[in-house]
């Protein structure tokens, strides 16, 4: 392999590595399921990774796709499913750890959908973290 090419690849690799680990909070696998047009609400799921040493919290979510977006948790107890908003502190993401928003557990409840949730559609979600501040991520509508 030629020397200049090796140099360019090295720089690219280092840049990619830096981008991958620089941010304290990384959000991946942001998605929601296609939802009947007649359904008032939808849900979004994601995985949040905290690369910092200290605990952070996802405090709130906003999106043009939702009249209001709330952080909720579905909980199963003796076969009875209940769903309630998480408390004001938000969703905890431990330092060096992660929080999974997933089906049947923590999720973003998209109240009063403002758009059709059809497969292939994408929506911006604005996530507000206690320490890391605000970041915008893209949610994809897909079947699972």
């Amino acid at each position, binding site marked *: 392999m030629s020397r200049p090419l090796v140099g360019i690849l090295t720089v690219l690799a280092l840049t990619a590595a830096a981008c991958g680990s620089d941010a304290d909070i990384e959000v991946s696998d942001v998605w929601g*399921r*296609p939802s*009947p047009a007649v359904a008032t609400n939808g849900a979004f799921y994601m995985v949040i990774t905290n690369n910092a040493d200290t605990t952070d919290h996802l405090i709130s979510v906003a999106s043009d796709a939702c009249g*209001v977006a*709330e952080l909720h948790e*579905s909980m199963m107890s003796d076969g009875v*499913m209940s769903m309630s908003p998480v408390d004001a502190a938000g969703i905890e993401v431990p330092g060096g750890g992660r929080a999974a928003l997933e089906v*049947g557990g923590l999720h973003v409840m998209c109240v009063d959908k403002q758009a059709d949730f059809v497969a292939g559609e994408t929506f911006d979600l604005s996530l507000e973290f206690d320490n890391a501040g605000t970041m915008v991520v893209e949610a994809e509508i897909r079947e*699972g």
Partner: protein
Amino acid sequence: MTDTPIAEEPTPPPSRSPWRYALVALPLVIAGLVFWWGYNRAQPHQFSGAVIQGVSAAPDFTLSSDRGPVSLSDYEGKVVLLYFGYTFCPDVCPTTLFDVAGAVEDLSDDEAEDVQLVFVTIDPARDTAERLGQYVRHFDGRFVGVTGTEEEIGSVATLYGIYYRAGEGTEATGYLMEHTATLLVVDRNGNLKLVIPFGVQSDAMASDIRYMLR
């Protein structure tokens, strides 16, 4: 690559050797398959939910859909999946319907013909028959959604041991329902046979349904 000659040719194996291996291996493979088939047939079907032992007749009821009244007895001879939920629910109810739709899709057309999902709302104040119909048909055009008065829904839920209650919500959501989130399966003879908990995947559900259709 260049055309440098290879220093040493590997010794070619004796030409009839692969066939000899095949002659030995083939009967072994056949014996293995026969054993595996027999073993599987001898095993009882492993259901993905809790099996209701004995005969427990599923109580009949009549509620309203956007296409007219629906009674459980309309589906006599079919496997009926009963789910009590509400359309305002963003997470668990649509996931369950999505999984059931996936299971029905896994079945052959003939099998699917003999399966009926009935979604009973536990939130009749918000779920009209029209809303329910459009909601359930998003998942599968054959699904049926039914509603009734608070009293009618309450008595059907009681018959099937379904708990529900309006719980606290937020300003934006209003109340949120708490409800038993299991899928009840009625067999071809009209007996309540299986209770599938939330979270069972489509393929496991399809396997249970297929077994019950036999």
